[in-house]
């Protein structure tokens, strides 16, 4: 059972275009939603994160949009560059009431930005 559903599985975008990756969740106890970026042969690294009390967070060309009522959040990459080509994972933090919190990851989106 996938607690965080991510789409699309892969994405090809022209240089300068907008990349959009979507995630949806069911557990209303999630209260922290990070995105991780992974380059081939490397481990994932935190890219940007949002808490559900805000609807949008922007860091440079990367923006998270969050819709609490729809239980959906998305990553937008503006002016996409070939260097953005990587696998992106959305995640959600669970376990607030158990005293230990662990991340649940989506299945990943492989982004290719063509020159």
């Amino acid at each position, binding site marked *: 059972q996938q607690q965080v559903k991510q789409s699309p599985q892969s994405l090809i975008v022209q240089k300068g275009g907008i990349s959009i990756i979507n995630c949806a969740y069911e557990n209303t106890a999630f209260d922290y939603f990070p995105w991780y970026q992974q380059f081939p042969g*490397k*481990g*994932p690294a*935190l890219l940007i994160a949002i808490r559900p009390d805000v609807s949008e967070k922007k860091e440079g060309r990367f923006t998270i949009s969050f819709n609490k009522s729809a239980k959906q959040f998305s990553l937008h990459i503006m002016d996409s560059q070939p260097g953005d080509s990587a696998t992106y994972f959305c995640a959600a933090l669970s376990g607030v009431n158990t005293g230990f919190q662990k991340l649940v*990851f989506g299945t*990943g989106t492989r982004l290719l930005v063509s020159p």
Partner: protein
Amino acid sequence: NAGVTQTPKFRVLKTGQSMTLLCAQDMNHEYMYWYRQDPGMGLRLIHYSVGEGTTAKGEVPDGYNVSRLKKQNFLLGLESAAPSQTSVYFCASTPRSAGELFFGEGSRLTVL
């Protein structure tokens, strides 16, 4: 600082063999995790530790054991490897409960 270091980076095993993956972090983090990454499955938590001497099961713990005898090290063991354990394994650590995880570069394991 090296951050999170995993050894070995690559390993090929035969079914039934045993092995141990070592994760070492030099950031004095309390929490450490082992994930496996498979195509189309994302990252799934195998085991985790909230401190030296403590371990707990994650989503997919069957077939694996772990130990955290020292704060900086987290070992993942396979007692009898199976082809279903062919995967890329990632270790991660954090100074507090989840949030930003710091990952190693992964260990690619193939079980024939």
